[in-house]
């Protein structure tokens, strides 16, 4: 069927949900230290090292990867719809960079003051700063790429890449000025990491991600219409200005929330929606929820690879996603170019 039916919606989402559950179980079991799932299950006590490793170390990390991956996947898909550009994702557009910069500044300026607060408040404080950074960046990039009411796709990507490099440099600057080892090293912000987090972090961030993703999914039919262009969408009954504002805010909420606990993890929002479009079509009613699940699966596996491939050392997870994402971006760029040329000649 060349359109979205309820059956297809259920089939794809249930399939992905099943895949995610399997991924979480499998990746919790895998690690540098061999542990027995059965033993941990049978003796759930803190005296049992298998149980401690699984439940206190690995599971929160796998769950954090789930939350962060889901957020990156759906934010990428939504930004691609909003900007009419299949090459958009929070990392490439510099949204993650802006969020990281504001997050790190907030930590330096007021981190010690809020560190005494309950965990979820402290995380929320940093998230709020990162959210503001993400919103500011999105609006800035959008305005820059807007030329006489039309989005210039290449201006958009260029501005994003330059802005990202700029933020990276400023993060390095803040890091060297403040000798900043408060909670993470600079590598955490630049390459991303999902290490050393607890359930409070996962729960708090999970809450914001559910909020943001839910809000985006509620806009999904309107996001479909946006692919006809801003005027086309308005002529089909969409209030484009409201839709744009909501999508900006929801993606910024997602990126702001996750950047503050995982740093800049790139390319998930690029790879995942693209593969899912090949699998199940472009309709955002399916693509958005599927990108949450698919992004989660992808990042859990990427992080598992990051912590096991050169064991006992660990790679930043951003290294793994960038090594997949860089070449993938080039491939997409070429493909888009070809399609654009073809479109002009037929």
């Amino acid at each position, binding site marked *: 069927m060349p359109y979205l039916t309820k059956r297809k919606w259920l089939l794809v989402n249930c399939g992905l949900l099943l895949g995610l559950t399997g991924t979480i179980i499998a990746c919790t079991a895998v690690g540098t230290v061999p542990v027995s799932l059965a033993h941990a299950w049978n003796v759930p006590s803190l005296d049992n090292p298998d149980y401690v490793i699984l439940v206190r170390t690995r599971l929160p990390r796998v769950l954090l990867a789930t939350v962060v991956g889901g957020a990156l996947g759906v934010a990428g898909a939504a930004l691609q719809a909003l900007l009419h550009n299949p090459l958009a994702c929070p990392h490439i557009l510099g949204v993650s960079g802006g969020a990281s910069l504001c997050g790190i500044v907030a930590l330096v300026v007021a981190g010690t003051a809020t560190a005494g607060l309950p965990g979820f408040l402290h995380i929320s404080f940093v998230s709020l700063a990162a959210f503001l950074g993400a919103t500011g960046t999105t609006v800035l990039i959008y305005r820059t790429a807007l030329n006489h009411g039309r989005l210039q796709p290449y201006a958009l990507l260029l501005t994003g890449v330059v802005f990202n490099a700029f933020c990276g440099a400023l993060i390095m600057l803040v890091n060297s000025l403040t000798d900043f080892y408060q909670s993470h090293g600079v590598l955490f912000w630049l390459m991303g990491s999902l290490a050393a987090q607890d359930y409070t972090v996962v729960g708090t961030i999970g809450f914001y991600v559910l909020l943001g993703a839910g809000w985006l999914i509620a806009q999904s039919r309107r996001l479909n219409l946006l*692919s*006809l262009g801003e005027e086309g969408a308005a002529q089909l009954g969409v209030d484009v200005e409201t839709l744009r504002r909501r999508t900006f805010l929801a993606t910024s909420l997602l990126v702001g929330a996750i950047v503050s606990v995982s740093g800049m993890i790139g390319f998930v929002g690029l790879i995942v929606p693209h593969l899912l479009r090949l699998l199940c079509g472009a309709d955002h009613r399916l693509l958005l929820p599927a990108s949450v699940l698919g992004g989660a699966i992808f990042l859990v596996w990427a992080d598992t690879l990051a912590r096991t491939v050169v064991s006992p050392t660990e790679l930043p997870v951003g290294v793994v996603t960038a090594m997949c994402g860089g070449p993938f971006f080039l491939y997409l760029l070429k493909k888009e170019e070809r399609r654009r040329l073809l479109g002009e000649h037929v």
Partner: protein
Amino acid sequence: MSMSEAALIACDRVSFAYGTIEALIDLSFSVAEGEILGLLGPNGSGKSTVVRLLSRVLTPHSGRVRFAGQDLETYSREELARQIAVVPQETAIELPFSVLEVVLMGRSPYLGRFGFERALDLTIAYRAMEQTGVHQLAAREIHELSGGERQRVILARALAQDPRVLLLDEPTAFLDIKHQVEVYDLVKNLSRQSGLTVVASLHDLNLAALYCDRLALLKAGRLFCLGTPEQVLTYANIKTVYETEVYIGRNDLTGKVHILPLDAETRRRLGSE
């Protein structure tokens, strides 16, 4: 009943400017139900602006646009989308939607927030695709199509909205002559059979003469003249508005006026006579 009472859609002393550039000045006209009105005028005369105002993408700076007797502003966007459909000059769709998905987008003003299309929506979409001859392309990706095919898909999407008014903004600018004629044949047919009201901006004067009931000729944002093709497409009007001389004749087969451009040599010769 006077013309203005029977009007389905009308501009009443409408003015609009893009920043400081005046695009339309004190424009008034009305279109009766089932009528085909052609908007003519040189580049930049305000044809596309009229289409944008009639579809409420733009709001007039003064004057009103009325639909079924009421100000356009009193309708919600979704309500309007069930009454008025637009076919733009060109639509660039960057994401890989299928043809059927694009046509089904025309049904969205009839669906709820999370709604999936019902069997009825599918029937209407297929009927619209058959009307524009793209039903065999239903499963193809929209990017794979040629410009002409894509435009007929967009027309099918507009018909799937089941509108009372169809606004066309130079819809056949990039089509070859066969597809141009097919599009207007279809539009005229729908107008005659189901009372569809059409407002079309056109560049091609001959197509305008062939298919439109009345023509509105715009010059620099003002209505220069309004009437039947015979009344509007005269040598004098065209010379004033387009600033060029043309040959005007009558086509024996259609009985309509037709317009042919003249080259510089002929124009010089005419001038000396």
